[in-house]
């Protein structure tokens, strides 16, 4: 019986490849967009404008306070009511990008706030413009604090991409769900699905903790 199951498992490899591709595309696009938007939002949130900072903060709090599944349902079912036609893929990209932006924004803000004010004052005194100050003085130093949690966040987002299977996107998790209807061996099927995520996520987890150790040590050195 196990041989029969293995046989039909092997038979569903095109489906598995499609799922892998979907998870990869979803994760890559939303991570890239989310990193860009997240950094922009973070710089604005740590900036001088109180209203802007407040608005971004409130939005981030809303997103952090609700389950991603509910956000995806809201986007998928409500945007069409507002007259925006969108398919499940676009809804997934919007949802994941929004989630990524909000979490990365908070990480960037924490990084910027960790840069000593003396550095900003020195930059001001040297007559650097706002943009120069941010790009040449603050962000490079903030990166040391930002990088480890950023990589950790990437892992969380790759995992969260599995939730879009709830609106019918055929990602890796959805493929597992489809295959298990044909091959009634949940343990085997979802162990394989898990393994696929593990192969991508585990090296990133290791990278995050290595970065933390290395950059943390560098940080301590500077403070001495």
């Amino acid at each position, binding site marked *: 019986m196990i041989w029969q199951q293995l046989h039909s498992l092997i038979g569903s490899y095109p489906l598995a490849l499609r799922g892998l591709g979907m998870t990869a595309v979803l994760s890559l696009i939303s991570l890239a967009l989310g990193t860009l938007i997240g950094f922009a939002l973070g710089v604005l949130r740590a900036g001088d404008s109180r209203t802007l900072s407040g608005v971004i903060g409130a939005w981030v709090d*809303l997103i*952090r*306070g*609700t*389950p*991603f*599944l*509910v*956000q995806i*349902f*809201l986007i998928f*079912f*409500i945007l069409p*009511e*507002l*007259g925006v036609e969108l398919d499940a893929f676009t809804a997934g990209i919007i949802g994941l990008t929004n989630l990524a932006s909000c979490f990365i924004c908070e990480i960037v803000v924490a990084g910027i706030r960790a840069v000593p004010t003396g550095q900003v004052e020195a930059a001001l005194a040297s007559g650097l413009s706002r943009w120069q100050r941010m790009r040449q003085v603050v962000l490079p130093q903030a990166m040391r604090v930002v990088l480890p949690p950023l990589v950790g966040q990437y*892992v969380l987002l790759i*995992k*969260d*991409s*599995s*939730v879009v*299977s*709830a609106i019918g996107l055929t990602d*890796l*998790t959805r493929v*597992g*769900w489809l295959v*298990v209807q044909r091959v*009634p*061996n*949940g*343990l085997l*099927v*979802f*162990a394989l*699905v*898990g393994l696929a*995520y*593990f192969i991508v*996520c*585990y090296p990133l*987890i290791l990278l995050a903790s290595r970065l933390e150790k290395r950059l943390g040590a560098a940080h301590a050195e500077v403070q001495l």
Partner: protein
Amino acid sequence: MLANFSFRTIVEYLPLFGQGLVATLWLSVLSFAGALAIGIIACGMNLQRSRLLRAPAKVYIDAVRATPLLAQLYFLYFGLPRLGFILPELVVGVLALSLNSGAYIAEIIRAGILSIPRGQVEAGVASGMTFVQRMRLVILPQAFRVTIPPLLGQAIVLVKDSALLSLISVAELTRAGQLLASDRFMPAEAFITVAACYLLLYYGLKGLARGSERWLGSRTVRSRT
């Protein structure tokens, strides 16, 4: 358009949302208790010298942290019956949430214990304390302070993650929203209400986390002086 947003329907379905909120709350509490127990055991095993104890804990922690909760949930949901355990969805859900959060809690506790400077342990050894005394009198009281805020953070994550249980049709908050959405074709009303309920829980827990930080912070300062 959202012009015909029907508050009346929301009021009509309020009891359903109330039940969902209560269900989410208590299944989260249950899962968090389970996660705490699992986390303490896994962390205890992970900190041992013996490979035999450490390896399984490490495999469990890494496997959970590197795979999505939804895949873990389906693994148990479709896998347990095969092993002969036919359990209600609710039990499977609570089990999945406990196992998932347990791994993160194990890491939080480990970070707390490792944050205690080695000198403290050595001082304990030098004063002739046993392992248990060192743990109870020196390490754990200090580690406790460092761990409470991230533990509350994990509780927030757990409450949000519990929404996924709706996908194996556990009757909780998000499920209530799904029911309203499919009964009356009113997804906007349904999921905005659901989101509002989660925000209620979120701000409650966040307030608790803030309060505990202030409380623990003031205590640390006082004990230092």
